[in-house]
């Protein structure tokens, strides 16, 4: 047989590949055509009073199943590596979720086991706390009888040690990287001291009612462990008071945790918790389907229908996570509010959430979502797709033929949803109103440099906007992003340069207001003005997609970025 014949055979074999692979295509229903979505994704009637159609998808029977215990939970994280167990861990909120909150406790953690209410700081390592009449001196009474995993006592001195470790540059155990990551949590802390073994006193620099929020992020590590192993080696022996103890940690591969028998909040039901990094979504999907893991963070959106059919537990829950475009308000065209508002009317959020992302997000019209205490009901869902309105606004502002703009978005990092496909859709949307949107993918590091530097930095002026995934319920960071306190170079992270004295005033009042309801009212007002001023273009809210094997029971997702694993158990 001649060589040519073999080349022919090879070529035809190669060309039959697609046909063969089509046979491998799983028998799922055709992707959404004509707006029809599967049962998983359609918004259902709300069961809570205030909120409109709920985007949640939680199997209550499984979530509240407390009938068993034991089993091993194996989590496939979207992070590229195991978050290192420092205070806090890296890899963003995913590190906090699976490592930080499991190994460590905080003074006033938010309650992550709540089903439908928005979590707020509650008792943790502190049992109660109060602010004095001067509004600056806080007294925390600490929980007694708590031990670190290494058996040493938890007390006020331990907390002071942790403060020193993060704030005191001359402290022999000062940890520079942990200090940098805790920068925001400790911004308002002036002094701290142990009044007696179980009483801690913290003084703030100015009246600041959100101190418990800040303290909810500060993880307490065992002073003995830090002293024994030193700053650099400590993380290999990370020790806290949390529900899980670290038993195995191989960088790049795996972390294993065992339940803490003496946990003050009740021993977790699991026999073991195993964490694996799986940054490739397709790989995570395969691992879940083959049983290698039984909890997959954010599998590919297109696979959700299929997974649902195969009997997996798809979990979606509204929580404060908003995808926004931060606009350069220093220069044209976005110095003009009409242009900014035009963008709000140009995005097809419904299309993005139903057709592109198959029900895995909900349209955002403000920083928070309807039903959240900081959502302004007066402004409501004013911002929705309205191509004519957008064109009108652009024409009024002097851009009847649109204009060119560029937007930078991250290609990596967890918790960003799916910037690539989402931005490509927005590109199409903008084209319909005459805006030529140029997409600039940036790797994570460059992206953060851009965000921290802000648009006041001349180097960043070549971009007109930045795609950012933000937690709008994380004071003080949240406030910094839209008040004058956060303007670079002295502050962080107001990249847009937006300042509205009214908003500043409302936020400062809220920080001065120690009554929760009044606080909420002030912030609601502030958020309404912020939304209307549109320095942020609101795209969508994430719904915290994760898919679990049906055998994993007892996990009640909360309205937050974080997870309580104490009641989780795995059926054999």
């Amino acid at each position, binding site marked *: *047989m*001649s*060589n040519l014949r*073999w*080349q022919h*055979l*090879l070529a035809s074999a190669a060309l039959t590949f697609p046909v063969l*692979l089509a046979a*491998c295509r799983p028998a799922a229903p055709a992707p959404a055509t004509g707006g029809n979505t599967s049962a998983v994704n359609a918004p259902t009637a709300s069961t809570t009073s205030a909120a409109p159609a709920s985007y949640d998808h939680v199997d209550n029977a499984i979530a509240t199943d407390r009938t068993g215990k034991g089993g091993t939970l194996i989590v496939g994280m979207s992070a*590229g*590596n195991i978050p*290192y167990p420092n205070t806090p861990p*890296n890899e*963003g909120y995913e590190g906090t979720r699976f490592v930080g909150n499991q190994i460590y406790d905080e003074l006033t953690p938010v309650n992550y086991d709540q089903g439908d209410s928005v979590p707020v700081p509650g008792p943790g390592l502190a049992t109660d706390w109060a602010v004095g009449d001067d509004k600056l001196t806080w007294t925390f009474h600490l929980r007694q009888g708590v031990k670190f995993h290494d058996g040493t006592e938890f007390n006020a001195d331990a907390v002071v040690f942790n403060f020193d470790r993060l704030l005191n*540059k001359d402290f022999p155990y000062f940890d*520079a*990287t942990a*200090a*940098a*990551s805790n*920068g*925001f949590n400790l*911004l308002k802390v002036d002094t701290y001291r142990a009044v007696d073994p179980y009483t801690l006193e913290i003084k703030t620099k100015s009246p600041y009612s959100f101190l418990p929020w800040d303290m909810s992020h500060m993880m307490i590590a065992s002073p003995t462990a830090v002293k024994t192993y030193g700053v*650099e080696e400590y*993380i290999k022996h990370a020790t806290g008071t949390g529900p899980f103890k670290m038993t195995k940690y*191989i*960088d*790049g*591969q795996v972390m294993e945790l065992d339940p803490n028998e003496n946990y003050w909040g009740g021993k977790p039901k699991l026999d073991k918790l195993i964490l*694996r*990094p*799986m*940054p*490739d979504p*397709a*790989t995570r999907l*395969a*691992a879940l*389907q*083959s049983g*290698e893991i039984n909890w997959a963070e954010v599998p590919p959106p297109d696979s959700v229908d299929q997974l649902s059919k195969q009997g997996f537990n798809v979990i979606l829950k509204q929580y404060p996570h908003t995808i926004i475009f931060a606009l350069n308000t220093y220069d044209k065209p976005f110095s003009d509010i009409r242009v900014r508002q035009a963008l709000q009317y140009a995005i097809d959020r419904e299309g993005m959430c139903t057709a592109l992302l198959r029900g895995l997000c909900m349209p955002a019209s403000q920083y928070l979502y309807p039903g959240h205490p900081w959502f302004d009901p007066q402004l409501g869902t004013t911002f929705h797709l309205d191509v004519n309105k957008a064109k009108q606004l652009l024409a009024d502002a002097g851009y009847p033929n649109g204009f060119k703009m560029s937007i930078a978005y991250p290609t*990596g990092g967890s918790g960003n949803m799916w910037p690539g496909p989402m931005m490509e859709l927005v590109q199409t949307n903008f084209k319909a109103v005459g805006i030529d949107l140029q997409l600039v993918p940036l*790797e*994570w*590091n*460059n992206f*953060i*440099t851009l*965000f*921290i*530097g802000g648009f006041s930095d001349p180097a960043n002026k070549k971009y007109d906007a930045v795609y*950012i995934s933000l937690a709008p319920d*994380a004071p003080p*960071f949240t406030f*910094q992003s839209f008040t004058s306190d956060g303007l670079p*170079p*002295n*502050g*962080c*992270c107001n990249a847009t340069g937006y300042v509205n004295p009214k908003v500043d005033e409302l936020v400062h009042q809220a920080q001065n207001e120690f009554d929760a309801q009044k606080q909420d009212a002030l912030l609601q007002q502030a958020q309404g003005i912020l939304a209307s001023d549109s320095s942020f273009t609101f795209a969508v809210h994430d719904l915290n997609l994760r898919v679990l094997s049906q055998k994993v029971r007892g996990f009640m997702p909360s309205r937050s970025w974080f997870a309580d694993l104490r009641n989780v158990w795995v059926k054999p």
Partner: protein
Amino acid sequence: MLGILMARRLVAVVPALLGVSVVIFVMIRVLPGDPLATLLGAQGSNPADRAILARTLGFDEPMPLQYLHWLGRLLTGDLGFSYVRHYAVGELIGAAIGRTAVLAGAGAVIGLVTGIGLGTAAAFRPGRLLDRAVSALAITGMSVPSFWLGILLIILFSATLQWLPASGMAELADGPADFLAHLIMPALANAAITIGLTARTTRSSLIETYGEDFVYTLRAKGLSDAQILRHVAKNAAPAILTMIGLQVGYLLGGSVLVETIFAWPGLGNLIYTAILARDLILIQSSLLVIAVTFILLNLVVDMLQIVVNPRVRRLASA
């Protein structure tokens, strides 16, 4: 004589290493973006904290001083501490290189054995069916993008047949079956190019050698096929040896794509994520380790050539 040749080769390595270290140092300082940005994170921090961090990491020193400090620490065996991963660089690289070596080793074994076997089989009957088939297969192996092959393997063996796990690496200590199951697909994806190149080189080298005069002489002398093969193999060895050296080098470092798809925690993956995270300390030292490995590898191959091939010996001493 041989010893002097080898010593000379060894000495020539030093300036190469120094030059490489300077190039590495300069190249990664050129990377855009603030190297501390990833450490600080999106929630940012205030400038005072950043300044402290910069001082701790030594980023506020002038460049030449940073370079000298780095070189000094290297000579004492200290590869540095990665603040991004919060681990000593030496440990990270040590672990990663071991894992890449496992993958590269498996790829090398599969690739070289298959390649040499196929190439030899093809060389025996040049122009016939087997030869054509091997040539076609070799070209296929050489041309296939390794990342695409990896995806196809995962589709077939993980998603559809569910025979093999889709990603990750299992420790040998956890059981040989699990270990092999995780190893086989990435090794195959890695080995495709090796199979192709090795088969071709073996085949052409053997055919060429078989066609040389001395083979006729040997046949005339009445040696059996097997004995002739031994002589031929010795003569064909140098070219094949060079190929093996190149392939092992490629497998060691060029596996970034395969490691990314299969989440194999090896050196390629380490460096790639380090570049993305601007983990300058880790990038510097890893690249240097790789460079040293390559240079040493080339050295070993060259030395072997000197030993095995009298012609090279003569040329080298000329």
